[in-house]
C-alpha cells in the first residue's frame, strides 16, 4: 500500500522561449547618472551585435511562475528521503544559506586588500583547521571546486612528490568497486589505470595488491568505507604494501560521512584524500552542484599544495604565493568560498560531539534498513555495514524485474530511487544510503515501500516494470535522446 503520497495537480508550463512576446520586460535599471553613449560609435559597427536572436522577453511574474511551476516537477530532500547511495543526501540546514549571503562575505572581491578580507580569510582558516582535525591529516587546500577536481589535485600532488624524487611513475591502481571519477582522474593526470579485483568479500585483496604494486605504481585510489558501505578492514596493511614500494594511498572521501568522529584517515595510513563538502558537510546539491572538494594531505605532500596558501601571521591572515614546489593553481582565486562558509556553519552547529552523533545515526539508519530488508532482498556481501547498504536484485530478477524497475516504482511510493546498478561488482545493485537526518518514521515508510514492491513483484510484476505510474512524465526515451541529440531550443 502506498502511504506516503497521493497525486495532486501540477501546472503545465512551456519553455520560456515559447512564453516570450516582443516588448515584455522583467527587469529594472536606474536612470544613468552619466552621459548616454552610442555603442557603435565607441566600439565600431563590426563589434556591436544585432539583437540576441530568440532570447526570451517575459515579465517578472511570468518568470516567477515559470520557475515555481517547474520546481514542482522535481523531487528534493525537502520533500522526503533521498536514499541515493554514495551521494549523502542529508538535510541542508537553512542557516548555512543565510550566513553565506551576509553582505560582507557574499560581496567580497577576491582581489580586495587582505586588510579588508580578514573575516573571509578566517572562514578559510577555521575550516582548514576543523577538516585537518576531522581527517587526522596535516595540511589542506580548499581550492578544488568539487570531488573530481579534488581527486585531480590529489593525484597531481602525488605526481609532484614522486617527480621531485626523480620519477613520477606510470600507473594508478583503482579497485573495480571505485567511482568512475577515479579512473577518469588518473587518466587526466597522465597516468595509466590498472584495475584491482576485489576479493570474495568485496574488499581489497592483499595478495592481489602485493602482486600489482611495483616501482611503476604511483598510488592506490581507494574509497573507505568502500562502495559496498563496508570498512576496508585491511586498509592499514594495504597502505603498508604501497608505502614499502614508495607509492601512496589516495582516499576518495565520498563516504566520509561514515567516519567523522569515529576514525580518521590520517590514522589508518592515508596520504592524501578529498572531502566532498556537498556530501558530508551538508552544502546543498542544487540539482548537480556547486560542490567543494578540499584536499587534505600528510606533511610530506604539503609543500606541493596549490597556491596561494593561507598564512597565519601573529595578528592577521595573509595569502602566500611563494611556494616553490607547489603544483600551481587548480582553480582561479581561492575555491568555492560560498560553499566553504556553509560547511563551516555546519561544523560549528554540530561541534565535535554533534559530528560524531551524526555519524552514529547515519550508520545506525543504514544498519536498520539492512536488517529490515534482508528477508526480502539478496545481500551479496552479508556483513555489518557502515553508512550505506548494497543489495542485489537477484531474487527479483529471477521474476523478470530489475533494480532499475524497482527504483522507478519507488517513485510512486513517494521516494527518490536508491542508486541503481552501482557498484559494478554487484550484479543488479540497489545501493541505499539513508543519512542521519532521516527519522525512524521516514525510514519505516521507506522499508514498507520496499517490502510492498517486493510483494508486487510476486503478484503483478508488470505493474513494477511499467512504473512510474503517478508522475507527470512517464519513462523517457533516453535512447532516442542520444540518437539525435536536441540540446537547445530552436524556434
Amino acid at each position, binding site marked *: 500500500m502506498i502511504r506516503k503520497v497521493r497525486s495532486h495537480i501540477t501546472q503545465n508550463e512551456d519553455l520560456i522561449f515559447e512564453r516570450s512576446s516582443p516588448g515584455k520586460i522583467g527587469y529594472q535599471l536606474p536612470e544613468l547618472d552619466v552621459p548616454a553613449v552610442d555603442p557603435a560609435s565607441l566600439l565600431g559597427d563590426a563589434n556591436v551585435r544585432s539583437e540576441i536572436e530568440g*532570447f*526570451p522577453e517575459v515579465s517578472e511574474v511570468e518568470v516567477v511562475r515559470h520557475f515555481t511551476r*517547474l520546481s514542482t516537477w522535481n523531487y528534493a530532500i525537502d520533500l522526503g528521503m533521498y536514499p541515493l547511495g554514495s551521494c549523502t543526501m542529508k538535510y541542508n540546514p537553512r542557516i548555512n544559506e543565510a550566513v553565506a549571503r551576509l553582505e560582507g562575505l557574499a560581496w567580497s572581491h577576491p582581489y580586495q586588500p587582505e586588510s579588508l578580507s580578514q573575516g573571509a580569510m578566517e572562514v578559510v582558516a577555521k575550516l582548514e583547521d576543523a577538516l585537518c582535525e576531522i581527517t587526522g591529516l596535516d595540511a589542506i587546500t580548499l581550492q578544488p571546486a568539487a570531488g573530481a577536481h579534488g581527486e585531480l589535485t590529489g593525484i597531481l600532488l602525488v605526481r609532484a612528490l614522486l617527480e621531485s624524487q626523480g620519477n613520477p611513475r606510470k600507473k594508478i591502481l583503482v579497485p573495480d568497486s571505485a567511482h568512475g571519477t577515479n579512473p577518469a582522474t*588518473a587518466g587526466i593526470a597522465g597516468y595509466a589505470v590498472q584495475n584491482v579485483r576485489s576479493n570474495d568479500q568485496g574488499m581489497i585483496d592483499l595478495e592481489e595488491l602485493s602482486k600489482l604494486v611495483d616501482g611503476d605504481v604511483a598510488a592506490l585510489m581507494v574509497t573507505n568505507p568502500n562502495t559496498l558501505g563496508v570498512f576496508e578492514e585491511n586498509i592499514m596493511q594495504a597502505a603498508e604494501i604501497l608505502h614499502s614500494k614508495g607509492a601512496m594511498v589516495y582516499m576518495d572521501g565520498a563516504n566520509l560521512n561514515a567516519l567523522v568522529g*569515529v576514525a580518521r584517515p590520517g590514522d589508518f595510513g592515508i596520504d592524501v584524500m578529498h572531502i566532498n563538502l556537498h556530501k558530508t558537510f551538508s552544502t546543498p546539491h542544487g540539482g548537480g552542484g556547486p560542490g567543494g572538494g578540499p584536499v587534505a594531505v600528510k606533511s610530506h605532500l604539503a609543500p606541493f599544495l596549490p597556491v596561494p596558501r593561507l598564512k597565519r601571521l601573529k595578528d592577521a591572515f595573509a595569502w602566500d604565493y611563494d611556494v616553490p614546489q607547489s603544483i600551481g593553481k587548480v582553480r*582561479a582565486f581561492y575555491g568555492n568560498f560560498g560553499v566553504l562558509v556553509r560547511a563551516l556553519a555546519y561544523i560549528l552547529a554540530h561541534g565535535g560531539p554533534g559530528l560524531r552523533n551524526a555519524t552514529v545515526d547515519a550508520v545506525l539508519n543504514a544498519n536498520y534498513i539492512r536488517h529490515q530488508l534482508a528477508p526480502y532482498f539478496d545481500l551479496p556481501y552479508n556483513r555489518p555495514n557502515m553508512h550505506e547498504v548494497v543489495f542485489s536484485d537477484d531474487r527479483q530478477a529471477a521474476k523478470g524485474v530489475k533494480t532499475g524497475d524497482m527504483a522507478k516504482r519507488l517513485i510512486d511510493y513517494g521516494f527518490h530511487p536508491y542508486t541503481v546498478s552501482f557498484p559494478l561488482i554487484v550484479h543488479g545493485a540497489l545501493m541505499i544510503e539513508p543519512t542521519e537526518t532521516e527519522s525512524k518514521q521516514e525510514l519505516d515508510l521507506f522499508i514498507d515501500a520496499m517490502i510492498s514492491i517486493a510483494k508486487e513483484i510476486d503478484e503483478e510484476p508488470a505493474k513494477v516494470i511499467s512504473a512510474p505510474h503517478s508522475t507527470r512524465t512517464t519513462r*523517457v526515451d533516453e535512447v532516442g*535522446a542520444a540518437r539525435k541529440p536536441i540540446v537547445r531550443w530552436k524556434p
Partner: protein
Amino acid sequence: MLAACGLTSADQLFEQIPAAARIHGALALAPGISEYEIVDYFKALSDRTSNGYASFLGAGVYNHYRPVVVDTVVSRGEFLTSYTPYQSEISQGTLITIFEFQTMVCQLTGMDVANASMYDASTAVPEAAMMAVRITGRHKILVAKSVHPEYRQVQQTYAKNQGLPIEEFGYDAETGQLDLADLEAKLDKQTACVIIQSPNFFGIIEDVRKAAELAHAHGALLVFTFSEAASLGILEPPRDADIVAGELQSFAISPSYGGPFAGIIASKEKYIRQLPGRLVGQTTDSQGNRAFCLTLATREQHIRREKATSNICTNQALIALMATVFLELYGKQGLRELATQNLAKAHYLGSKIKPKFSGPYFNEFVAVPTGKSPEALNEALLSKKIIGGLALGKFYPELSDATLLCATEMTKRSDMDTLAEVFHS
C-alpha cells in the same frame, strides 16, 4: 533501532573498524553552538571585510546587481536540495532549467551546443584545450598573454601533467590587443588551439575574426574565453571560434570572494561528442509528451571511466540556475541595456582618466596614475572608503606602473569623480 539491529550499544556499530584505526577519545572541536550564535559569529566576520566600501575592481569578478527574484527561485527546496537529475521522471524541473540555460548560452555566444556548466572559466579553459587536443590530434597550445592570468595558471597546471607544451604570445603595447604577428610566428603544424579572451584581461575588445583566420589557416582551433559575460549583451558574439569557454559570474552570481561561479563550455555542433560534463537533451516520454533527460552520457566518467572526455561530475547547477533566472528576467532588451549602461559608466570614467591602451574597451581599462604608484593610489583611496583597481605589476611586471579600473551599472558617478580626483592629485 539498536535492538532491531541485534545490538546493545552504538559503539558496536563500529566494531568492523580495526581498533588501531579508530579514534580513541574525541575530536578536538568545541561543542556545537546555537543558530543565534552562528549568525552572530558570521556577522562579525562579515564586518571584518570590505562591507560598505565602493570598489573599482573587476579583473574577472564583477559587481552587478542581483535581482531579488534570483534568490527567490534558487531558495526553493525543489531546486536547492535535489540531486543531479538522473531520474528524469522526477527531475523535469531541473532538466528544463538546464535546457534553457544551454539554449541561452548558445544564443549569447553564437555557438551551436553548450553543456550544463563547468566549475568556472579558469577550469573550463583547460577542458576546452583538451577538447582541441582530442579533435586535432595535435599537442601544442598557444595562449594570449592578455587572457586572465589565473586562467593561464590553471591551464599550466593541467597541461603540464599531460605533456602538452604551452606557448604564450603577446599583446600590442599601443592598442592592448593581440599581437597578431607574434601569433602567426608561433603557429605551426603542432598547434592544437589558440586561446584568446575578449574583452581581454585589460578590458580591450579583440579582433576575433582575424585570430580565427590565422588559427584556421594553420589547422588549429580557436578557443575563445570571456570573464565579463555582460559584454555579450552588446558585443558581436565569437561566431568564428570553434570552442567557447567562459565565466557567467556577471549574471547574478555574487563575487563571494571568488566562488562559487558558473563556467560554460560551448562549441560548434560537430564537436558535441567531445564536450566534457553533463548535457540535457529533449526527448519524449512513453505517452508521447515532450520530456528531457541527461544525454550522451557515454562521454562521461561514470560510463567511460578512464576513457571519459573529462573527470568532471559535480558541476555548478544551482549557480547556473541563478544565471538562467537572471537572463530570463533581463531578456533580450534588458541585457542590451545593461551592457550599454556599463559601457556608458566606464567611458565616463575614461573621460576623466585616460586609458593607457587605444583599443576599444567595454567596462574596464588600464591606466597609469599621475605621479604615484598604483599601490599608493589604492592606499589613498582606502581612506575615502574606496577600493581602487587592480595593480597590474603582480601579473605583468612591464605594467607595474598601471592599474586596471572597472565601472559597472552599480558604480556611482560621485565615486568616479572622487577616484579621478585622487588619481590626478
